[in-house]
């Protein structure tokens, strides 16, 4: 369990003079790292898991402090569900399947885009000096995965309320949702990182990411169709492995390529 202190260190890690100009919490134990000068405040870079957990905690805290943004996304999900319900009052299981994943897709894009757009350039420079880019992106991906899981559960719940819950194999559906959240999160986070500096960033992110997630989406729809008993397939583990393989490819690519994006 980390002890969180609102502090940063001047000069060498040996001294513990607190400086309250930092608005972010850091864990106390720094496992060796470089010190960099950022705008007159001396901070120590963190390495490894400390950085990761700190960044993750930062994302969650930031989100909690600006709850309206999170609430906006959740409201978006609920509104989409209601719109769909009003448009097609009786939803048969095959349609339910497709609609659920479409709602997930659009909500995910919005959620991930928002998390990149709200960061300003100065703060990014700050993080760039501090932590390994791999940890930055991993923290963002993890945070987005959790967010998408939340969105997925909410969508499932709301959809269940208005249109019934045809899920028969709950374990498989939960697995599908987890894999889907991970996959969407990786793809959208990376694309958002790429396109956040562009002119039309929100639309651009959607355009860039939809073709990339298309194969993943097809597999997800297929798996959830199996869990809804729309089709019988005892060899669905092949699909699960396929999704895991896609996720692995994507996360490897993200780790390799993100440092180049992070440079500015």
């Amino acid at each position, binding site marked *: 369990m980390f002890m969180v202190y609102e502090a940063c260190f001047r000069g060498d890690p040996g001294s513990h003079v607190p400086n309250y100009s930092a608005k972010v919490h850091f864990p106390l134990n720094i496992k060796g790292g470089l010190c960099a000068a950022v705008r007159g405040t001396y901070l120590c870079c963190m390495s490894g898991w400390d950085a990761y957990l700190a960044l993750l905690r930062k994302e969650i805290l930031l989100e909690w402090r600006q709850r309206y943004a999170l609430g906006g996304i959740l409201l978006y999900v609920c509104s989409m569900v209601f719109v769909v319900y009003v448009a097609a009052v009786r939803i048969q299981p095959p349609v339910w399947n497709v609609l659920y994943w479409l709602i997930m897709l659009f909500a995910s894009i919005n959620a991930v885009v928002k998390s990149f757009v709200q960061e300003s350039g100065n703060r990014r420079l700050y993080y760039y000096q501090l932590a390994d880019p791999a940890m930055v992106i991993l923290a963002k991906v993890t945070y987005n995965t959790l967010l998408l899981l939340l969105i997925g559960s909410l969508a499932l719940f709301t959809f269940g309320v208005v249109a019934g819950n045809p899920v028969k194999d709950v374990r498989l559906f939960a697995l599908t949702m987890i894999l889907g959240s991970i996959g969407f999160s990786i793809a959208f986070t990376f694309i958002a990182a790429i*396109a956040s500096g562009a002119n039309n960033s929100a639309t651009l992110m959607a355009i860039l990411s939809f073709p990339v997630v298309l194969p993943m989406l097809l597999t997800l729809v297929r798996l959830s169709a199996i869990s809804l008993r729309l089709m019988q397939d005892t060899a669905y583990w092949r699909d699960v492995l396929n999704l895991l393989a896609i996720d692995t490819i994507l996360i490897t690519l993200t780790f390799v390529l993100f440092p180049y994006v992070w440079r500015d």
Partner: protein
Amino acid sequence: MWWKISAVVLLLLVFLFGLLVPLYPGLTHAAPDTVAPGASFVLQIQGYNTFFTRAEAPVRVWLVHEGRHVLASGSVQAVDEVTLEARFEVPATMPVPASSLPLDLVVDDRLHGAMFLPNAVRVQSLSGETVAAADSLWRLAEVRDLHRNEDFRFTHIPINYESIRNLYFHVPMWMVMFVLFLLSMWHSVVHLRTSDAIADARAAGYAEVGLLFGMLGLVTGMLWANYTWGAPWSNDIKQLMTAAALLVYLAYFILRASFDEPEKSARIAAVYNIFAFASLVPLIYIVPRIFSSLHPGGEGNPVFNREDLNVNMRLVFYPAVLGWTLLGLWIARLRIRLSILNEQLMDR
């Protein structure tokens, strides 16, 4: 320079051979296609590229069920070059208990070789109920000593017939697209490591021409599918995946256009290029295997498998791929030279 000439020469040869080499003789359909047990009927067989009047006796015709139960034809007569008439006596009993029995047609002759028509005739009991099984009458004949046609001809595939030649025109488009996208990714990697603007121009140029060949491939595929699969777009997984690939590269160009500073645009676009290629291309080849392997059947596998490509066809196919690739590289280099000149002019 030599490779441009060889591209043209290869393609000329491919056009000549690809269009002029005839297909093997084969069967197109047979009538009547449903008979009752115990019936005696004359089967009219239509062939394509056949020359039945010049066929060498004996012309043997069999109706086969699952390779084991064989009905041999009593008398075979050639009506004209493409029509053959064979008389059959169907036993009153079925070899296996069934109300409906599909039979494959086999015609063999020394000049034609062995020709097949799967599911040509169906033995259907009139009442619709299962007929007793007694297979003694079905085991009197045997399909053996089939001849092979040794001419230099192309495979005869039902429904496709001559359009099998598209193998030399439609399929290489995808190979060229793949090669060009691979080169584009390679130059993106070079650009990321060295920040060389020429590498970036090359990446964009290869991507553009790759996109061109991809679109040509998709459009020609739709034309071919329209006449063989029945509709230009049949939601086939390979069609979907390649359309997704094209969308990705279209998005690449939009990405390039949406940044204000050229260096940032080039770098971000290079990252997206690598991401898109490395994530999409394996998916194009992995996902169709999942879906087509779980949905076996005629429309599941749009690419001809190894058995359909006989040696003669491969002899023309590999040069075709090489020729089209060289042509694609030529066009891509033209495009790249153009964009480099453009940039040099802008700099001045």
